[in-house]
């Protein structure tokens, strides 16, 4: 097509989707494009249906979170037939990288603060019966600046470290404590594998989580079971 094609820069590739940095509407509005390409090995009809379904369910979750005030990127535009979602560009780094830097520089207080925020955000998610499904340290962003003002023509402003959840591609609605506990378990494993010295850090996350909503105690109890057996439930009996 002609010259209005927005430039795309590939920033991440997963099993299911390619993630680009691009722009939406105007060259001045940065956006993230999540593209689920066709899988040539799948039957075309099935492929279309799966892509469509996943795009739409991810979008629904994102907008639902947004409505509840849970920090996630806003969805700008969905083309479910092509498997494309345009969403708000979050400028910042993953919590994994931020933690690395903070621990290396010994910024203890900031780390504690971040852990607390983390616990509260996950609690808010679970309180509203939303399960992230892939809650790793790479899927949590820490935003240091954000656009102020309106979409068209805004400037960046500095904000206090703000935790933003990304990639709800595996998310779902669930009232089950099991699912929520698995979310926490996955997060714990991610923490421990990337920041081995961070065992007490994750405890801070849990403390903040536990104090944030009513059902949290039950989830914590369940977490103990999940720790014993791992993420997958035994199908015996």
């Amino acid at each position, binding site marked *: 097509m002609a010259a*209005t094609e927005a430039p795309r820069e590939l920033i991440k590739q997963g099993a299911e989707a390619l993630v680009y940095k691009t722009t939406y509407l105007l060259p001045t509005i940065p956006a993230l494009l999540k593209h689920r390409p066709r899988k040539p090995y799948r039957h075309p009809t099935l492929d279309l249906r799966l892509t469509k379904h996943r795009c739409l369910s991810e979008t629904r979750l994102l907008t639902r979170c947004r409505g509840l005030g849970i920090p996630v990127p806003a969805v700008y535009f969905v083309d479910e037939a092509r498997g494309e979602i345009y969403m708000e560009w979050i400028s910042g780094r993953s919590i994994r990288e931020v933690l690395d830097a903070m621990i290396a520089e010994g910024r203890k207080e900031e780390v504690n603060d971040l852990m607390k925020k983390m616990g509260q955000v996950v609690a808010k998610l679970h309180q509203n019966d939303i399960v992230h499904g892939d809650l790793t340290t790479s899927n949590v962003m820490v935003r240091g600046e954000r656009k102020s003002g309106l979409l068209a023509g805004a400037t960046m402003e500095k904000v206090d470290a703000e935790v933003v959840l990304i990639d709800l591609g595996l998310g779902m609605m669930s009232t089950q404590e099991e699912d929520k506990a698995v979310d926490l378990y996955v997060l714990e494993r991610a923490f421990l594998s990337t920041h081995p010295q961070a065992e007490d850090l994750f405890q801070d996350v849990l403390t903040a989580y536990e104090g944030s909503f009513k059902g949290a105690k039950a989830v914590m109890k369940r977490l103990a079971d999940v720790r014993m057996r791992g993420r997958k439930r035994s199908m015996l009996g």
Partner: protein
Amino acid sequence: MAIHTIQLQNIPVAHEVHIVSFKDVENASFLREQLLGGNAEFEYAFVDASTIVSTAHILVAVHQAVHKLLVNEKLRTRNVHSEIVFSLSPNNNITEAFRRFGIGENTKSLLCVKISSPEKTISAAEVEKHLMESVKGTQMEFNESTIAAETDWANVGKCYKMKGCKEISKEVELEVLGKMVMRSVG
């Protein structure tokens, strides 16, 4: 010139977007009749500017409508221009969308959007000339502050089921856009 011509990202150049805005419009009912009568010369999206909260708001609707036209998804309404008005709606009721967001008897401020097409290229000058002759009102610039000045928050609150918003902010804008996106994903 107060006509605003925009090339949207990922939309072919041939589909450039012309926007002219007016306030103190006096002949809204005449314009509305032209639309209802299907007068081909008046193939515009006439949007009641009191329902629009920001420039991006109307551009998102335009983008959705043109995109639908391009990917051969059937348009839900008569043409790409009426589809723009429909795209503003948070639900699937077409009549209601036209009543709320389209031009009405009492419309005072108006956004006129015209999409050029490869089959029927239309230049900014042509659009402006025709609109200047047809719309009785004061032409105004299309920018964030003129849009904000015309926004009727009571009306926006009704249209998008939002309570207590009195001025535009980043959060309000994204909430409105979110509701439009949700409509299209069901």
